[in-house]
């Protein structure tokens, strides 16, 4: 017999030990799998690390993945802190990318700094407004935000596809549906070989840390997350805080959309997100909704994704196996949270069970 009971809080080092061993557990399980496919698992795992950092190009690509993951996770964090389950980051990124692309295509003649600032503001604004829709319905009609934000993602995807095949189709592409490439003016500059998004990420982490931990606004978000009634009794204007928090949440997603189009892909399509909007939810979760952990987990995820990508070419490991490897690690990492919060008792026999009672 196995019984489950809630744990008292473990000391942090033990928590991290459990997390680390869960990853090791996943790697061991996958080793059997990789061995069966004729690969040396240790070589594969170390190649995941060299595949992420081995050359400057790979390092750049890893950081280019970490930036949007972490900023999107910050956006999700502010909503999650309030227990507003914003699953709509994917759509917020795409709508932000749409606004940024609008300026990039229609105002390409503007000087570069001005155009980039317009794109960033436009992207954040539309991303924020897109997140305000479910927030408005939540405060006004108490709709379920999980479903609402998720469904808005599909609308955003279809909107981008409509633009791609319709009004924004590049006439110079011989009939192929593609939104035109950005001019140099609409491209984010690089600093140290990587687009300036990394500076924005550092700034945002610091700002978010201060806002969430040191300001009245951050406190209000946390209180509403714990109990709306408490917040009301304390005289907070709950609805106002919910709306402004969601605007910020969506605006961060929108900013990511701008950076992905302008800094990485140089054009708009539905692949600019690469699923970041969903992966960032897991990042936020594994970071325990704590700002300072976001970039760390974001980097780990970037390595995981980039590494899984690299081993496909380096070892000719099929795409689906690389996917299983990623999935296994994620599964174990999320599963370890269970063992941090609960413990299992092996109950040898009925008598022992009675004694435990």
């Amino acid at each position, binding site marked *: 017999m196995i019984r489950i009971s809630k744990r008292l809080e473990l000391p942090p080092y033990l928590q991290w*030990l459990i997390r680390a*061993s869960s990853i*090791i557990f996943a790697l061991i399980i996958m080793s059997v799998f990789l061995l069966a496919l004729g690969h040396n698992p*240790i070589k594969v795992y170390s190649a995941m690390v060299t595949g992420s950092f081995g050359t400057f190009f790979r390092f750049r690509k890893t950081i280019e993945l970490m930036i949007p993951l972490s900023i999107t996770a910050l956006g999700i964090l502010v909503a999650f802190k309030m227990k507003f389950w914003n699953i709509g980051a994917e759509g917020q990124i795409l709508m932000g990318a749409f606004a940024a692309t609008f300026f990039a295509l229609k105002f390409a003649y503007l000087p570069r700094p001005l155009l980039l600032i317009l794109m960033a503001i436009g992207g954040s604004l539309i991303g924020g407004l897109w997140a305000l829709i479910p927030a408005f319905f939540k405060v006004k009609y108490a709709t379920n935000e999980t479903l609402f934000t998720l469904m808005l993602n599909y609308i955003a995807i279809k909107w981008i596809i409509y633009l791609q095949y319709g009004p924004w189709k590049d006439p110079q592409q*011989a009939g192929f549906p593609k939104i035109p490439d950005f001019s140099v003016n609409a491209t984010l500059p690089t600093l140290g070989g990587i687009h300036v998004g990394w500076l924005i990420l550092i700034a945002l982490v610091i700002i978010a840390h201060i806002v969430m931990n040191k300001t009245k606004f951050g406190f209000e978000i946390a209180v509403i997350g714990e109990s709306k009634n408490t917040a009301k009794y304390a005289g907070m204007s709950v609805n106002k805080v919910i709306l402004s928090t969601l605007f910020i949440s969506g605006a961060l997603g929108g900013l990511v959309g701008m950076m992905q189009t302008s800094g990485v892909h140089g*054009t708009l399509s539905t*692949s600019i997100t690469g699923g970041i909007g969903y992966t960032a939810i897991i990042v936020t979760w594994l970071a325990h909704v704590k700002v300072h952990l976001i970039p760390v987990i974001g980097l780990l995820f970037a390595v995981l994704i980039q590494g899984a990508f690299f081993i496909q*070419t*380096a070892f000719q490991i099929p795409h689906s196996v690389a996917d299983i490897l990623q999935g296994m690690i994620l599964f174990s990492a999320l599963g370890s949270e269970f063992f941090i919060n609960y413990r299992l008792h092996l109950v040898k026999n009925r008598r022992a069970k009675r004694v435990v009672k």
Partner: protein
Amino acid sequence: MRKLKIISVLVLSLLVLLTACSDQGSEPQGTTTKVGFIYVGMIGTEGFTYSHDQGRLYLEQELGVETMYQEAVDESAEVETVIANMVDQGCNVIFGTSYGFGKYMLNVADQYPDVKFLHCSGAQDAENMNTYFGRMYEPRFLSGLVAGLKTKTNKIGYVAAYEISEVIRGINAFTLGVQTVNPEAEVEVVWTHTWYDPATEKEAALALIDNNCDVIAQHQDTAAPQQAAEERGIAAVGYHSITEKNAPEAYMTAPIWNWNDYYKSEVEKVIAGTWTPENVWLGMNDGLVLLAPLTENAPDGAAEIVEEYQSKIIAGDFHVFSGVITKQDGTTIGEEGQALSDEEMLNMSYFIKGVNGKIETN
């Protein structure tokens, strides 16, 4: 506590192992030719990516060169990462087999001047990058002959992907084939706005069948429309590769790709050091596109008429889009005794008479 000790010892020993063996997967090759393939889909057992992978295997078998591939690559900056990884692994020839890869191949082409880039269905080239594609409209026309003979209701369903000229050209060529043998028949088009979505494509085919179509043709990468035809006991024309086993009672034939000879000759040129970027649009006379062998499901007499037109096309005596062609709206294009130019065909954005459907965007 004891368990924790065991766990921590396990963790530490594994970490030591991992760090100790930090050598790379495989060393880059010297001067030998290694060919990388970037695929937009999964290889699977049929379809567009599968057809390219057959070409890759042919290269290994015929030339003994090493090859590698990566499946399911997004049409995004991800392509640049794949290229860098492949070059790191020693690739000096890279085939990108989707239109949307072009921009990113072009982005990095000048960073790797010693690597040859070949872009399938692309439009842009560079000093070390070409574009190549096939005149699929030729075997499409032939498949139209088969469908036109097969139909009893004189309504043929066409499950179409997106409103782009490649798809439109295919529908028009198919319709010309149908009307060559059966002027009464019409081709009814339904758009799915998908390249790979079995459920949607099957639904679309079923809707066409419900609307009295008794032959189904398609432009997507799944055999789902053929399976819909199989379920309802009618006939189907496939696409990309032979899919007889997916719908044994329905599948009649399919316009398909055969990249073998082109890939072999290009890689041979690279090995010989004579490769130059040449943009090509190859037809049935080059063997790049063809009509798959007819099955028992094909109607009587189809084999003969297909053979007749096939040899004319290969000999250059017959061009699919030639003479005066009446468009859907009643206007005409083309002149007697002349074929449409490549440019006119590449920018085709109208349906011809006999197609029952609408091009919605543009």
